[in-house]
Each structure stands twice: as C-alpha cells, then as structure tokens.
C-alpha cells in the first residue's frame, strides 16, 4: 500500500515538475519494507536531481520485480547488490557505473561478507556441523544474508536446502533473526557481516550473548565474518540509458562525501569507481552450478514458453490419448454390437435353414407318398376298370362270378381309400400370408450363400418389389429347388452364370431363373415335372414335381425352356391382394 502511495507521489512529483521530461526511474533492490528503502535512497537522488535538473523516481523493487523491470527496460538506473549487478550485466547488458563504499569499511572490493551467528554457548568448529542444526536466514536472494554463505557451503559440497536439518527464511528486519537465536528458536542465523556489531552498538542484544562462528581472518575489516568478502551495492545504468545523462548522474553522485546527510541517510561513505567483480562472477558461477540458488525466476521466465509448450504438448497428448481411448471404446462397442448382430444373423440363418429343411422333409414325404399313391393308383384303376368290364359282359347264368367280381371291386376300393387317407395324412396344410417376393428371393440366396461361394458365382439379379399372398415356406422350396437345379446343371461349367428376375406382368408375379448349364434333352424336358424322373445320380426326382404342385396350388404356372446354352424356368404366380379360399 505504502509503495503504491510512493509510486503515486513520485508520479505526481514528475507531473509537478512540469518541464515535460519523464522522471528517470531508479530501481533499487529491496528485501525490507519499501518505504525504508525509499527513505534510504530518496535524499541521494533529490540531490542528484538538484544537480542535474532531471527528476528521479526511486522505485524499491523485490528481486523478481527488479528483474522484470530490467527485462522490459522500464528503468533507467538500478542500485543492486554485487550479485544482482553481475547477473544483469551478464543477462541484460547492464553496465556497472559505481560501487558503493558502505559504512565501516574503506575497501569497496571487500565490503560485504556473511556471518554465521550463534549463541555463545554453542560451539561450531566445522561447517559440516550446520547440517544438524536449525538455521534461519532472511531471504534466499539476500546477498550478504544467504547467497555468499551458500557459495561457501557449495565449495564444501553442502546443499543447504537438502542437507540442513531445518532451514527457514523469516524475512526482514535482520535484527529479528538475532532474537530468534537468542530465544533458542533457532541455533544459527545467517546474516550479512556487521549486523551483529551494529545491533550490539545499538544495544539491541547483550554484548556476549551471541558470537560469529567459523570466522575468517580478514585484514582491515571491522566486523567478524564467516565468509570471503565481496563488493557492496553497485550503481548501474541500463543499456538504453543515455551516456551523457549517466555521466551527469555519476558526477553528481561522486561529489557526495561521508559527511553529507545523503550519505548518512543512505548508510554509506561515498561512491567509488566500479570494483573488480571477478570474485562476484565466480560466486555467481558457483551458485549457478547449484540449482538451489539459481535465479529461479529468471530461469522460470526463460522456461515459461517451454513449460507452456510442454504443457500444451502434454495436454494435446492427453487429448489425443482421450480421443484414442474414446475411439477404442466406440470401436469396441461397434465391434461387439456387430458381432452380436452377426451372431444373431447367423442364428436366424440357422433357424431358417432348419425350418427350410423341415419343410423340405415334410414336402418330400408328402410327395413320395403322393408319387407312390399315384403309381399304385394307376394299376388299381386298371384292375377296377377290367373287373367292371367283366361284370358288364356277364350273362345272367354266370351269377356266381357276379358276386366275386363285385367283391374284387370292393377290395380295389378299399385299397384305394387306404392310399387316399395315407396321402391326405402326408399332406401339410398351406399357410397363406402376405409375402414380399423380392425379400424372399434375397433371403433364399442368403440361405444358399455357401453354395454360391463354393462355385465362385454371384447371380445377376433384377428384382422388382412384388407382393402377393402365398405360403412363404412353400415358395421358398420352389426357389431353392430351382436355384439348386440350376447350380447342379452348371457344376462343371468354367464360367457359370445365373440370372434371376422378378417382374410384375399382367397381375402376375413372374420369376425367371436362367442358368448357363447343360440344359435338358427334349425328352427330359417333356417329363420334367413327373415324379421319379431324374438326371441326377442320387436324386429322387421329386423336386420339380414339388415345385409344380406348389406353384399350381398357388394358382400359378411353371414352364421350362432350353436356351442356346442352359435352361430358363419361368414361374408365374397370380398377385392376390388378400387370401381367397
């Protein structure tokens, strides 16, 4: 909230200056509260503003914000710690203009270090001991507070994030960490050098309660330190900032001495020429090797497109997976329903076949009975005629013969009534119903599909839709018989051809079956519809008789004629709208 206010006031002041120049933006790396940071640096740049005639706005920024502002060229100058500065130098071409000489030290090359602070009662001789302790620090991005020490740890192959028993970042102010150690809430605090000394000077902690462990001997350094020393804050310009302007600002800053109020409020002595940052680069490299201290946000930013890409790819992959899965489910369902249907069809076909053969058996039995009856009937008729002829020739004197002959006639009649009953018994009643002949022909072909397959023959069909009243199973018998005969006639044919036509002609349904088979002799043709006439070795000679009987029972006609090659059978059935008696 305060920061927003500051931003607004600085913006307002920029409008107030009214000379039309944009205020120059100075980003300051800030971990602590933004107004503290603002108050530290504002006097310095007020003075620079006075000297140069430009307006400045000081923007305290968190490490993340600072990086974003630098990346988008939203700043003109930055004040950052040594590590940030070299990082930006490397990544964004920021140029280091000045180094800060902080209070206490006069060597800008060695101005900041890290101190490991613990209670006086605790003894830490070796850096490895830290891993068993509860450690606090202010921020993983804090230079003196954490990163310098992290570099030291890295050179001892210790990863503080993994290897420390407990590592907590508690934020600012830094004095708070001293209290945590004092109150035994933590064993060790990682803090920039001189924090302890400054706290003791201010009387915030008792003089002997805390100590800096693993101290390094550093000549001409006033505070105890546990690490090597690095340069302090640096003032840098961004690549786009005008160098004339930069020179003016640098001139103005260099005039500040340690007695000036700006230096006092800024807690520094003066600004110096840029220091040797080789050590800082080395530290950066060390830290970059250790993923725990890499500039996560920066890496993340670089990685974001890749991560998004990868996510999109993953998402696409997942979607593809889902789609494939769905397709598999659908296909499986389709397949299983197809299979089910297939099974059903097969069952139906099987059922049909069974029905068909049953009907055929019944018909054959009937026809055989009929044929036998006929064969017996003829001689019986002859006997009866002859006997009665004898009776007519008897003279009145031959009375004895009369009764014998009459008895003979009675015997013939008895035999005949037996035959008649036998035949009636074997005849099955027809069931007339509405019958779609086109469907029936197609069904029949389906029924006979295996035979067509065996002969590599597909019939040429030309079927109109014709419906009449008929006994479906009987008509099917006719069709099967005729088609089978046609197939048998073409058994030894290389190029068998079968044509089946169904047309409506003059209130008759006409079925024409033409084959390209061996045909029939004239004699066989004339006796085609007689029982026990067959050209087949194993045939009974009833098929065509049955056909004729069925067709005639339907009031229709059946004819056969020889073609040049093959036989043509024409069945014509009257079309009935409804069943008549």
């Amino acid at each position: 909230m305060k920061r927003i206010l500051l931003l607004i006031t600085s913006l307002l002041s920029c409008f107030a200056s009214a000379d039309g120049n944009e205020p120059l933006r100075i980003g300051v790396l800030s971990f602590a509260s933004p107004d503290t940071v603002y108050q530290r640096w504002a006097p310095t740049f007020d003075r620079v503003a006075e000297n140069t005639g430009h307006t400045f706005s000081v923007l305290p920024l968190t490490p993340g914000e600072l990086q974003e502002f630098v990346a988008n060229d939203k700043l003109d100058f930055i004040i950052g710690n040594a590590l940030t500065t070299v990082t930006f130098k490397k990544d964004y071409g920021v140029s280091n203009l000045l180094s800060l000489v902080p209070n206490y030290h006069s060597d800008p090359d060695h101005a900041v270090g890290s101190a490991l602070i613990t209670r006086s009662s605790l003894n830490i001789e070796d850096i490895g001991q830290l891993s068993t302790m509860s450690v606090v620090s202010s921020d993983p991005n804090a230079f003196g507070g954490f990163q310098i020490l992290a570099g030291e740890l890295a050179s001892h192959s210790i990863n503080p994030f993994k290897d420390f028993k407990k590592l907590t970042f508690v934020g600012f102010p830094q004095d708070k960490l001293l209290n945590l150690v004092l109150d035994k809430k933590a064993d060790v605090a990682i803090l920039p050098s001189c924090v302890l000394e400054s706290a003791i000077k201010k009387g915030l902690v008792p003089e002997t309660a805390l100590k800096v462990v693993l101290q390094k001997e550093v000549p001409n350094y006033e505070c105890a330190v546990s690490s090597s020393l690095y340069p302090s804050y640096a003032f840098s310009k961004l690549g786009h900032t005008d160098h004339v302007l930069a020179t003016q600002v640098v001139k103005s800053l260099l005039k500040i001495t340690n007695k000036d109020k700006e230096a006092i409020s800024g807690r520094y002595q003066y600004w110096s020429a840029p220091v040797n940052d080789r050590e800082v680069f080395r530290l950066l490299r060390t830290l970059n090797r250790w993923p725990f201290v890499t500039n996560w946000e920066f890496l993340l930013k670089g990685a974001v497109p890749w991560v998004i890409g990868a996510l999109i790819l993953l998402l696409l992959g997942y979607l593809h997976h889902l789609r494939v899965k769905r397709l598999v489910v659908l296909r499986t369902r389709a397949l299983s329903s197809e299979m089910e249907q297939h099974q059903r069809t097969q069952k139906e076909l099987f059922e049909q076949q069974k029905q068909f053969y049953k009907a055929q058996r019944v018909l054959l039995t009937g026809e055989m009975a009929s044929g036998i009856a006929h064969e017996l009937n003829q001689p019986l008729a002859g006997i009866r005629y002859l006997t009665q002829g004898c009776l007519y020739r008897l003279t009145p004197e031959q009375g004895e013969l009369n009764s014998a002959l009459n008895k003979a006639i009675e015997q013939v009649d008895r035999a005949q009534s037996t035959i008649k009953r036998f035949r009636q018994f074997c005849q099955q009643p027809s069931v007339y119903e509405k019958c779609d002949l086109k469907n029936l022909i197609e069904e029949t072909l389906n029924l006979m599909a295996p035979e067509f397959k065996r002969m590599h023959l597909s019939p040429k069909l030309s079927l109109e839709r014709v419906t009449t009243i008929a006994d479906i199973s009987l008509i099917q018998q006719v069709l099967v018989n005729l088609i089978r005969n046609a197939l048998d006639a073409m058994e030894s044919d290389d190029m068998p051809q079968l044509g089946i036509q169904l047309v409506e002609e003059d209130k008759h349904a006409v079925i024409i079956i033409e084959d390209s088979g061996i045909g029939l002799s004239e004699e066989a043709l004339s006796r085609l519809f007689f029982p026990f006439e067959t050209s087949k070795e194993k045939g009974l000679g009833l098929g065509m008789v049955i056909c004729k009987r069925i067709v005639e029972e339907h009031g229709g006609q059946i004819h056969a004629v020889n073609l040049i090659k093959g036989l043509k059978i024409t069945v014509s059935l009257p079309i009935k709208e409804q069943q008549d008696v």
Partner: protein
Amino acid sequence: MCDIYLVDDDQDVLDSLSWMLDGLGLKTQGFLNAATFLSAVDITRPGIAILDIQMPDMDGIALLHHIKAAASPLSVIMLTGHGTITMAVQAIQQGAIDFLEKPVDGDKLSLLLARAKEISLQSFDELRLQTEIDHRVASLTPREHEVMLKVLEGKQNKVIAAELNIAQRTIELHRQKVMQKMQVSNAAELAYLMAKSEE
C-alpha cells in the same frame, strides 16, 4: 352318333377303361397324349373327351383350355389320379362338365356319358344353327340388312320407307327378300331366330 375319346398317357389304364366301356356297349378311341388326339380328332364334331390331367407336354387342363377356346361342341370330362380342390375348380371354370377321381365307377360314368352326349349334341346343334344363321345374315345385302334391323324393331313398312327415304314399294320388296333369305315366313319368326342366335 357320338364318339367317345379317351386321353391318358398310361396305356394299360387306357386299355382297361376302353374295355370296360366296351362292355357297356360304348365304342371309344384312345390317345396317349394331347398331340395325337388333336391331330386325329375333328373337334368341331360332337363327341365326348375323357381327359387325364397328368400328361407330359400338354396336360389335361391345357387340352381342355384348347378345346374350349376353339369353340368345340365336345363335352369334356376330367379324370385324375389325385385331384385337388383347386384343380377341380379350375377344370369346371374352364368348361369341363365334371371332374372325377380315378378309377371311376362304370355305372356312374355311363350316366355321365349319357348326359355329356346330350350336352354335346345340343351345343353342336346350337353351333350349327348359329353358323347357319350367320350364313343367312351374311347373304343379305347392306340395304336388306338395314331393313331387317328396322323390321326387328317392329316398325311398319311405311315408317321404314319414311326413315330410309325410299318408296314403300321398294321396302316391301326388300322385306320379302329378307324373309326369303332368312328362311322365315313372318317378322315374329325372324325375331325368334335372331334372339336364339344372340344367346
């Protein structure tokens, strides 16, 4: 005089039936199939045909159809080893006088034959008369034919004369000629004759 023809493809049955009828004093001629029957018999003469239904080539029903289509005076009796109702109905519809199952009883058959003979002769006479009338009508001149139709309508000579715009005397002559050619003595006889021919 009325011939009896038997058509059956079974020689034995044919012979035995013929022999039985012979016993009843009825002379018959037997044929083994429709073709020989048709080539040997003048079907415009009166007679009786006893046809077996089941025969090769042209079966009994087809032969019956052929006979009736030729406006023959023949009486046809169908005979079959095993008849169905459909067949029987078909045969009667086609003009057979009866449909019997083999073997037929001689007594029954002789009664039927007597009736068939009567029917055949009668239809032969009718056919002959019809032919005769047709001949007579054909011998009329167009004018005479015209006058005859007017006479049949019951019109008097003077009315006809007026309608046809001819002298009454001429009409009288035409009328006389018509009566002469049609072999009738008056208008009533002419009307009777024509009515009979139109039956």
